[in-house]
């Protein structure tokens, strides 16, 4: 039996019409994912290897190690097919939907990475697929919109609210409530009603399963610290899962500090997405968790320069692990994330996603507190973010930013 709660967090706060589907999913999760019925887990692992490209390296980062005088290793989820950790989950869930006899896939996406991974998995497994994406995110993550379309997915823009991840999730839940009998909702992070948070964690925990063994191989021991960015927290839980019982390993969940940690109650806006560090308990999208909300319980509009972290909630298990003192919730602001984006690109030849860059921003600010062996999860690559990064870099005076004037010198070069 799987449990629906993590301490007081989690649960199943959904409209009644979805409850039977959630019971059906719980049953399928227990049988196929936990008990490997019909060889589900074997097939999943095989497809992750052949289609996804696993296992992925734990790479020694030479420049960063020298810079911080500590051994820094990169867990290279950016090398997973699709360019982010998202495929681990998307492939697992689309395959599960097949085993369950569902005929159609829907998903929300913020940065477009989950949408892209889902569209790829759906094309790979021959399932029709519809992706809900906020208007703001469609604008700032265009390359992923192209990729989803090219993989044959339908994209439905969501125009309510600020048009970001929160609204996209709400709209996907509405679709699911209408089509639940034949449709599976591939949720993109460790959020939503049980069993989603546990199931998504299980699909993502291949990250730490590999990283834990690779740490032993490379350094002969477990790391002192493991660092991952956290939006909903799926790469985070995936990177932490197999280390949770190793008390000597520090776990750091790096949230988006945005432009400021303060909130504007009047406008209902939080210029950050730091729900673990600054939010309080409430119920959103099917789970009790930590949220950015006003004193009445209305959900705030979050903000981050990275679309994939721009969410007012967070996974309930992560909220629980933070309360227990097992995971440290920390945050890094937009400026530091952009700096870190450029530094990793220049020093290591790895262009990270803006989400990922937050983890490296934390390393820059706190490397001296993290011990002698640090693993950072490179949750995704930054190709999707290049337009945003150029724009946001122009607005700022960043130490490490490249000189882009060459683009102005040729006609039609942009900027």
């Amino acid at each position, binding site marked *: 039996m799987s449990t629906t709660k993590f301490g007081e967090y989690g649960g199943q706060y959904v*409209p009644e019409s979805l*409850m039977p589907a959630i*019971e059906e999913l719980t049953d399928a999760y227990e049988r196929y994912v936990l008990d490997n019925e019909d060889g589900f887990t074997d097939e999943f692992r095989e497809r992750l290897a052949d289609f996804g490209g696993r296992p992925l390296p734990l790479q020694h980062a030479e420049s960063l190690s020298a810079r911080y005088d500590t051994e820094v290793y990169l867990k290279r989820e950016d090398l997973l097919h699709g360019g982010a950790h998202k495929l681990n989950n998307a492939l697992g869930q689309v395959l599960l939907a097949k085993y369950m006899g569902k005929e159609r896939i829907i998903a929300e996406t913020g940065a477009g990475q989950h949408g892209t991974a889902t569209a790829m998995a759906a094309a790979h497994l021959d399932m029709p697929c519809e992706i809900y994406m906020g208007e703001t995110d469609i604008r700032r993550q265009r390359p992923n919109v192209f990729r989803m379309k090219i993989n044959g997915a339908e994209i439905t823009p969501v125009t309510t609210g600020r048009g970001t991840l929160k609204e996209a999730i709400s709209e996907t839940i509405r679709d699911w*409530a209408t089509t639940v009998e034949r449709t599976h909702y591939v949720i993109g992070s460790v959020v939503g009603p049980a069993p989603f948070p546990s199931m998504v964690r299980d699909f993502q925990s291949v990250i730490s399963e590999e990283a834990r063994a690779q740490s032993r191989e490379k350094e002969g021991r477990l790391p002192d610290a493991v660092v991952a960015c956290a939006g909903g927290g799926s790469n985070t839980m995936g990177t932490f899962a197999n280390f949770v019982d190793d008390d000597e390993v520090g776990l750091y969940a790096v949230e988006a500090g945005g432009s400021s940690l303060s909130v504007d109650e009047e406008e209902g806006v939080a210029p950050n997405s730091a729900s673990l560090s600054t939010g309080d308990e*409430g*119920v959103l999208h099917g789970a009790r968790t930590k949220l950015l909300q006003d004193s*009445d319980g*209305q959900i705030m509009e979050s903000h981050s320069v990275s679309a994939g972290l721009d969410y007012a909630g967070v996974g309930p298990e992560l909220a629980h692990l933070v309360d227990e003192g097992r995971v440290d919730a920390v945050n890094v602001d937009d400026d530091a994330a952009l700096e870190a984006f450029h530094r990793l690109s220049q020093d290591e030849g790895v262009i990270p996603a803006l989400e990922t860059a937050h983890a490296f921003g934390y390393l820059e600010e706190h490397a001296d507190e993290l011990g002698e062996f640090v693993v950072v999860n490179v949750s995704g690559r930054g190709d999707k973010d290049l337009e945003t990064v150029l724009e946001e870099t122009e607005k700022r005076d960043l130490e490490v930013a490249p000189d882009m004037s060459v683009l102005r010198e040729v006609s039609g070069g942009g900027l």
Partner: protein
Amino acid sequence: MGLEEAFADEPAFVPYVAAGDPSIEASKAYVEALERGGADAIELGLPFSEPIAEGSTIQGAVVRALEAGMTPDRYFAFVEDLDVEVPIVCMTYYNLVYQYTHPETGEQGPRAFARRSAEAGIEGFVVVDLPAEEAGPLREACDEFDQDLVFIVAPTTRGDRLDRMADHVSGYVYVQARLGVTGAREDVSDQTEQSLARVADWSVPKAVGFGIKTGEHAERIVSAGADGVIVGSALVDIIADGHAAGDPTADVADRLEAKARELKAGALAGARAEAEQS
């Protein structure tokens, strides 16, 4: 008057509107007009920023009400101000219940919410995202403060889940006529009769909602065995259109009253038809 009594003599017409849509004053006039038009109870929405079970019509109402400044405390004051006799049911989402802080006791959570509701004269709740499994704390608070807790039975609800809900429900059961989100439709779903059959032996009255738009729909649903009809989007459409056209509040209130009469008359005709059948 208890919620169950709203269904006692004849089939009930239960309208839904969002409190504060499109302004506090207009909304008050609209609720009162619905009572004049024959409402037997009123589901009054307390707007939540993430209405995951609502279609675009009621999402619009929620946005307008929030923009008009509706908050839980203003909502309770609004109910206290209403000049209506029929019972008011608070329809909302769980986070607002969970976060609510009672202004006098300082207590937070379902108990504080139920206490303040009772003080304001509210008689019960529909909490859209609170299935029976998670409803324990609110059910206890409802018992303590004499509030009914209405559950929604969906076309997909079967077996054990029905039993669990039957244990917790009071006031009436909200029979969801079709899968999906709220919104007015052109036809009556044939899932309605099957859903009604599944709750036939429940002791509480059965009210059918989701997609009902006309008096004729109401008639068919009551003749199929419902004890009442719940109508939201078809009424909210009238409010939205009036707001968009800049029509005076009194004119929109008249239209709502007329629509209420049509729906109530439909429900009564349905009861006559049912009596003739049996």
